[in-house]
């Protein structure tokens, strides 16, 4: 209740920028969140006082770098409630999903099935399509309800004993709908399928207790979770990871290399070929630590209060239509809307001239757009540092677009 948004804002230097004479109303957090000083400082500390390659050096800088890197793994692990050795650093959320598609995917046989949904981000569709063309597996797609939720009523029909993996967005990046994970896990386990969640849109909203979910893989991106670019996380159950072959080959992921053959290091190193993204990992560790210090009950209330203010305001503008769950239950602060007769890009462009940053278009979810025959939506995605002034500037801009562009 007593969420101090000003105190949070103060930690994000970019939010006090003035661009072309206007303050920054940043409501495009679903694409990339902003980053706090704690993260910037952690990375700079590494770069200026402890930069070196990790794992292999015996000198002090290398020891510092290795410690910082492994400490970052622990910070991420604490954020997810899992053992550090199950946390794999990847280049991003997309890279994490591709890792599973290549490595776990190589264990699948022609005729095996993977279950996705029609609201998935391209990053959780295309890797599986590529796997399909490599190996002859089949893909099934859970439909989406009018409210923009994955339709779990279709689970019994689409889950078969051939289904080896169910991979779904924890939160939709278009509608903000939260998945009913327990229902998915119960149904999947009944047919022996593994469950992977694409947590790209969930991780920016606070710690996740993965063990309580009963899932097998979790992926998220650093840059959407207040960390740097170029880093992401794959969590996997230890025994699963240990049974998976490597994805990329290179330094650090090997046991012993000979010209004839090579043996693999245990996970997580097996999946971290080459020099890892040390600085970005340290930044993401700091971002996770930063998130863990926030009062998320209060932050979530604050965010959902902004969602309510936004929905109320949009309803007062003629010709707006929300796309997504109508209630605030089981949803997160990602709101898509359309303005009749105005293309989403023109809405977003107009908003930019009010200093408001949102995203417009297909949001890398073209199948979802096709399903609802949409040209795209305008998407408002929030973080704890957003405040009423951001929403009000946005509403002013939408009203202006409604008045001038149609």
């Amino acid at each position, binding site marked *: 209740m007593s969420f101090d948004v000003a105190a949070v804002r103060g930690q994000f230097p970019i939010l006090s920028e003035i661009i*072309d*004479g*206007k303050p920054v109303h940043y409501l495009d957090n679903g694409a990339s969140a902003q980053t706090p000083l704690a993260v910037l400082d952690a990375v700079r500390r590494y770069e200026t006082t402890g930069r070196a390659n990790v794992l292999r050096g015996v000198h002090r800088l290398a020891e510092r770098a290795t410690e910082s890197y492994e400490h970052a793994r622990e910070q991420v692990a604490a954020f997810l409630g899992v053992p550090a050795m199950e946390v794999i650093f990847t280049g991003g959320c997309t890279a994490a999903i591709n890792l599973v598609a290549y490595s776990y995917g190589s264990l699948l046989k022609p005729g095996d099935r993977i279950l996705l949904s029609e609201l998935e981000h391209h990053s959780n569709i295309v890797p599986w399509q590529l796997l399909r063309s490599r190996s002859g597996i089949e893909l099934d797609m859970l439909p989406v309800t009018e409210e923009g939720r994955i339709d779990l009523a279709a689970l019994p029909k689409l889950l078969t004993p051939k289904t080896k993996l169910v991979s779904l967005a924890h939160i939709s990046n278009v509608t903000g709908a939260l998945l009913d994970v327990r229902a998915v896990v119960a149904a999947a386990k009944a047919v022996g399928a593994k469950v992977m969640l694409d947590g790209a849109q969930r991780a920016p909203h606070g710690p996740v207790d993965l063990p309580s979910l009963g899932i097998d893989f979790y992926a998220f991106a650093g840059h959407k979770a207040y960390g740097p670019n170029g880093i992401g996380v794959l969590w996997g159950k230890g025994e699963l990871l240990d049974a998976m072959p490597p994805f990329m080959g290179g330094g650090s992921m090997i046991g012993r290399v000979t010209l004839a053959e090579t043996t693999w290091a245990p996970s997580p190193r097996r999946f971290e070929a080459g020099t890892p993204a040390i600085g970005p990992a340290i930044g993401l560790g700091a971002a996770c630590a930063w998130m863990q210090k926030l009062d998320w009950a209060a932050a979530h209330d604050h965010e959902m209060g902004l969602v309510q203010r936004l929905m109320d305001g949009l309803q007062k503008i003629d010709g707006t239509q929300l796309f997504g769950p109508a209630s605030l239950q089981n949803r997160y602060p990602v709101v898509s809307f359309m303005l009749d007769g*105005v*293309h*989403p*890009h*023109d809405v977003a*462009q*107009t908003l930019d*001239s*009010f200093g408001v940053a949102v995203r*417009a*278009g*297909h949001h890398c979810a*073209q199948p979802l*757009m096709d399903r609802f025959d949409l*040209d*795209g939506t305008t998407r408002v995605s929030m973080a704890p540092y957003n405040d009423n002034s951001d929403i009000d500037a946005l509403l002013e*801009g939408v009203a*202006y677009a409604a008045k*001038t*562009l149609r």
Partner: protein
Amino acid sequence: MNDQLYQERIVALAKAKTGAGKLNDPTKSARRDNPLCGDRVTIDVRLDGQGKITEIANQVRGCLLCQASAAALAATAVGRDAGGVAELRHDAERALGREPGEAGEPFSAFAPVAAHKSRQECVLLPFEALKDALS
């Protein structure tokens, strides 16, 4: 507010919807997508024996800039062959500041887009579709 992009002339071009629709039995037709933003333009043309456009129509699922550009193109392309259309494109490129020189009417209306690189493809998409249709 600092709305320099959607100036009256662009909005007017888009609202005019010149050429909106399909041709029955067009000589040629082509569709172009912009994968980044999802804009889609389909252009139908009827050509005479010399490859000159006698009729043109467009279906646009895209933003105001794309609509305005398609309309401006429909308003100016009739009577031109591929070479003549290429000249119009130079006008558009000039308006966008991608080529030196002054843009002719009606493409000069797109001058405000010069400052918005990410939107320039929206203006050029109908040209791409028409080029495909003519080739």
